[in-house]
């Protein structure tokens, strides 16, 4: 009986300690959310979503061009990064049990650990210098380089989850290997891959460093891939380091919008994966 009491006591204490650890871990997250919402909510208005930035001293204005720019740059990054990332993942899962596959996996791992500012410098050297101008394309390339390794690894994992029986079922019907890979295996993993893409996009959309010297910034609307383009993250950076109090307020509101954007992308990814599991 005594040992039972002791075990119960230990159980209680350990559960309590775990709860405490959870509370401490949540503290920075909750305070961050609280700070951004409380400081940013005041400046939120419809025109903040649609208008161009206003100069110092003028009231109003918004970050419409930065929201559009972020979506534009991320769109370019998807166009470049998703085919390469998913394609590499399919290769690794279907044909990757070789030394070459191990090498690619190792490179992907190293690449996903590279600080994002280094990726920015690489894109600067690869795209900005030859084109002689900052551009949305350069920003898209930088974000794509960030997306490819994580996307390749998660695609590989998801494809390996597809039951072997399905592959065999298709092959036994006289479907060639490549069609089986594409139309049965990839098709079955597609729901999960969509989720992985959304989560990777959400991460890329929140990057500042790779965009600082690739897409730079722009005070106006821009839809040309070869022109400097505004983005929410760089806009926040510029507002935050400025000496003007009203720009600081705008930085908070922009941060809130970025948080909403990234949050809703991640949420969409989660919902998609939940619906898939049922």
């Amino acid at each position, binding site marked *: 009986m005594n040992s039972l009491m002791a075990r119960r006591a230990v159980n209680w204490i350990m559960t309590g300690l775990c709860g405490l650890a959870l509370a401490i871990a949540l503290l920075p997250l909750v305070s961050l959310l609280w700070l951004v919402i409380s400081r940013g909510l005041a400046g939120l208005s419809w025109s903040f979503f649609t208008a161009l930035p206003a100069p110092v001293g003028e009231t109003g204005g918004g970050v419409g061009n930065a929201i559009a720019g972020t979506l534009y740059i991320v769109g370019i990054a998807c166009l470049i990064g998703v085919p390469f990332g998913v394609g590499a993942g399919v290769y690794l899962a279907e044909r990757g*049990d070789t030394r070459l596959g191990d090498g690619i996996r190792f490179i992907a791992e190293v690449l996903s650990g590279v600080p994002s500012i280094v990726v920015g410098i690489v894109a600067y050297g690869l795209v900005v210098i030859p084109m002689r101008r900052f551009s949305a394309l350069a920003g898209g390339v930088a974000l794509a380089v960030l997306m490819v390794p994580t996307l390749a690894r998660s695609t590989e994992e998801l494809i390996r989850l597809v*039951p072997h*029986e*399905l592959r*065999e*079922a*298709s*092959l*036994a*019907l*006289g*479907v*060639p290997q490549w*069609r*089986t890979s594409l*139309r*049965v295996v990839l*098709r*079955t993993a*597609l729901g999960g891959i969509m989720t992985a893409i959304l989560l990777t996009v959400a991460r890329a959309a929140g990057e500042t460093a790779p965009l600082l010297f690739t897409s730079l910034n722009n005070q106006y609307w821009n839809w040309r891939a070869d022109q400097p383009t505004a983005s929410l993250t760089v806009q926040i950076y510029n507002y935050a380091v400025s000496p003007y109090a009203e720009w600081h307020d705008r930085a908070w509101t922009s941060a809130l919008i970025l948080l909403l954007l990234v949050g809703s992308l991640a949420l969409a990814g989660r919902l998609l994966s939940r619906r898939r599991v049922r």
Partner: protein
Amino acid sequence: MRPKVEVRSLNAWFKANHALRNVSLTVPANTVLAIIGPSGCGKTTFVRCLNRMHELVPGACQSGNVLVDGQDLHARRVDPVNLRRRVGMVFQRANPFPTMTIFDNVVAGLKLNGVRGDYPALVEKSLRQAALWDEVKDRLRQSAVSLSGGQQQRLCIARALAVDPEVLLMDEPASALDPIATARIEELIRQLRESLTIVIVTHNMQQAARVSDSTAFFYMGELIEHGPTEQIFTNPRESRTEDYVTGKFG
């Protein structure tokens, strides 16, 4: 009767593991061959050699000949992909494509290969052959995973039949099914014999006795005995066969 499938001194390996040892037998057209034997005796490996699925396993190799209609499966001009359309396969566990509807599952063999045709008629014909039509005819657009286990297995049979094979390999098709679904599948095998040749692997001795014309007993990778089903079960030549079919070991 002319042999539909002829196997001559077939050996198969998984890396160093010698899974099949010098197996030779023939299956006449429009008959059912049952393969029995304890677990790990090479039954599944044997049927997988008949449509060249064996060679897809990493480290697998084989020697000897398998002939279908007198043509060697390993002749250079035989394409394994084409061969598998002639020699269909149903697996132990029902494996419908989860992302496809019932309808699309049936015609998957054609659709994935880009073959056009009168899909609705083919779906009805194949599902009727697999004795599933009446249960699913009003829900063809639903997901295949909405079906029960027995229905899924019959769907897989319909899917294999839709590519119009000449030989159907069945690897313990009823081992995961309840008695009613099993009876359905056995009835189906008896009907299908009219139009094709069937090789069925089974752990269930009564099932082998009920559905097959001839029975082959495998043990430790060797073909111990092959003969008319009645003889194997009532008057086997080999004592090991008798011990197995009477349940003394295995």
